[in-house]
């Protein structure tokens, strides 16, 4: 393995291991999403959802649950001196960005593994749309992880960490949410899934991932300088 790939694997493994041992983010994210579904059930006064309403409830919940994890993403690095260690190590700093994005994608996938089936049990009539939904979830997770990692790494060094992540991240992911809900809406439509403009929205999601992946990779070096 090249040094970059070894460093990537080491940071990712460190993150996953510490999450598995402390369980700081994931259970909170999953619990939050289930509670939010219950609140939507009474807020909307609906026992079953379909189409745009289902897509909106699912994505709003996943986004807010993701914010919880994004808030905590760099806390250990800041409090335990991980940033200094990365600065001292003879590796490319962008590796940290890549590893954190990968860790966040894994957290989000784990969250969705719990939240989406519960969502289907609570609100959906059939599970037909869930298969193709995986592609939407994965592409959206990638974009959310790229912007989330970028914002989180900056917010963690500020005075208002918990405030800045939702404040800056939410407007930044509006295009991502437009594409994700646009692709999800026909999948969860009443009377079976359809694929109206499915490919177009997946392409928008891919473009978003590409642009913010590249931006994050390009600017991340400047965030670690001191």
């Amino acid at each position, binding site marked *: 393995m090249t040094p970059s790939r070894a460093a990537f694997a080491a940071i990712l493994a460190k993150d996953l291991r510490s999450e598995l041992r402390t369980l700081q983010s994931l259970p909170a994210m999953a619990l939050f999403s289930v509670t939010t579904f219950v609140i939507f059930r009474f807020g909307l006064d609906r026992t079953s959802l379909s189409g745009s309403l289902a897509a909106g409830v699912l994505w709003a919940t996943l986004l807010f649950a993701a914010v919880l994890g994004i808030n905590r993403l760099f806390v250990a690095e800041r409090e335990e001196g991980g940033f200094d260690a990365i600065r001292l190590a003879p590796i490319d700093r962008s590796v940290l960005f890549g590893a954190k994005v990968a860790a966040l994608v894994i957290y989000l996938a784990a969250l969705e593994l719990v939240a989406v089936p519960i969502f289907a049990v609570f609100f959906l009539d059939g599970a037909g749309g869930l298969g193709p939904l995986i592609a939407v979830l994965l592409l959206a997770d990638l974009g959310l992880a790229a912007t989330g990692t*970028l914002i989180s790494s900056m917010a963690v060094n500020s005075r208002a960490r918990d405030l800045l992540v939702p*404040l800056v991240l939410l407007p930044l992911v*509006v295009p991502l949410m437009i594409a994700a809900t646009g692709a999800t809406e026909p999948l969860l439509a009443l009377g079976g899934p359809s694929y109206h403009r499915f490919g177009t929205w997946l392409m928008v999601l891919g473009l*978003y991932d590409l642009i913010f992946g590249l931006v994050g990779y390009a600017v991340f070096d400047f965030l670690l300088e001191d």
Partner: protein
Amino acid sequence: MYGKGLKPLSIATVAMLAVSLSLVFFYAPLDADQGFIQKIFYVHVPLAIVALVGFIIGGIFAIAHLRTNNRKWDAYSYVSIHISVIFGVAVLITGAIWAKASWGHWWVWDEPTLVSFLIVFLLYATYYPFRYAIEDRDRQARYASVFAVTAGAFVPLNFMAVRMAQSLVHPRTFATAEGGMPGEMMLAFLCMLVAIGLLWTTLVKFELTAKSASGQVKRLRRALDAPVAGGSSRIAPEVS
């Protein structure tokens, strides 16, 4: 020193605004469809174009700051975004007035350009709390530049996504410009665009001059070893 040339630039701006506004009100014909209210188009659209270009310019200055590590570019980037946010408020207000007059509602959701502009405006509005929350001055400048670059990449993507999500009822300015807008209207519009562009440049230059002057005063006070009275804005970058 940023004050050089500020006076002729201000005079040129005022003259250009006066000429363009007279063109708008006395030379360009009344719109057959919308009548007098259509005149707001000559303010609303140039303001929106200049604000968006200003956001992109702020992003370019931010790239220059990250590449050279010269704090001057951070100040340029900050002031560009600052003036564009102020223009953005004017765009949203004039847009709402125009929407009320021509469609009967203050806010119309299925109008992609106005909605996109709102999202871009909301993102750039977070530039201030973001900047304000970072204490170390070097780090603040660097993070603000990273924000400006990221947000600059966000602007075109956001316009694309919002346009794809909605039907098209917004007046297509440039479609009509090619097709049907009379020459008199086009001339008045282009003059207003130049005038608003000049206004933006003047305000940016003015703000930079003011910041540079107050920075100099502060340094002189410090040199005299007197306590700084009043304090300074913690958000705004210092200009040397």
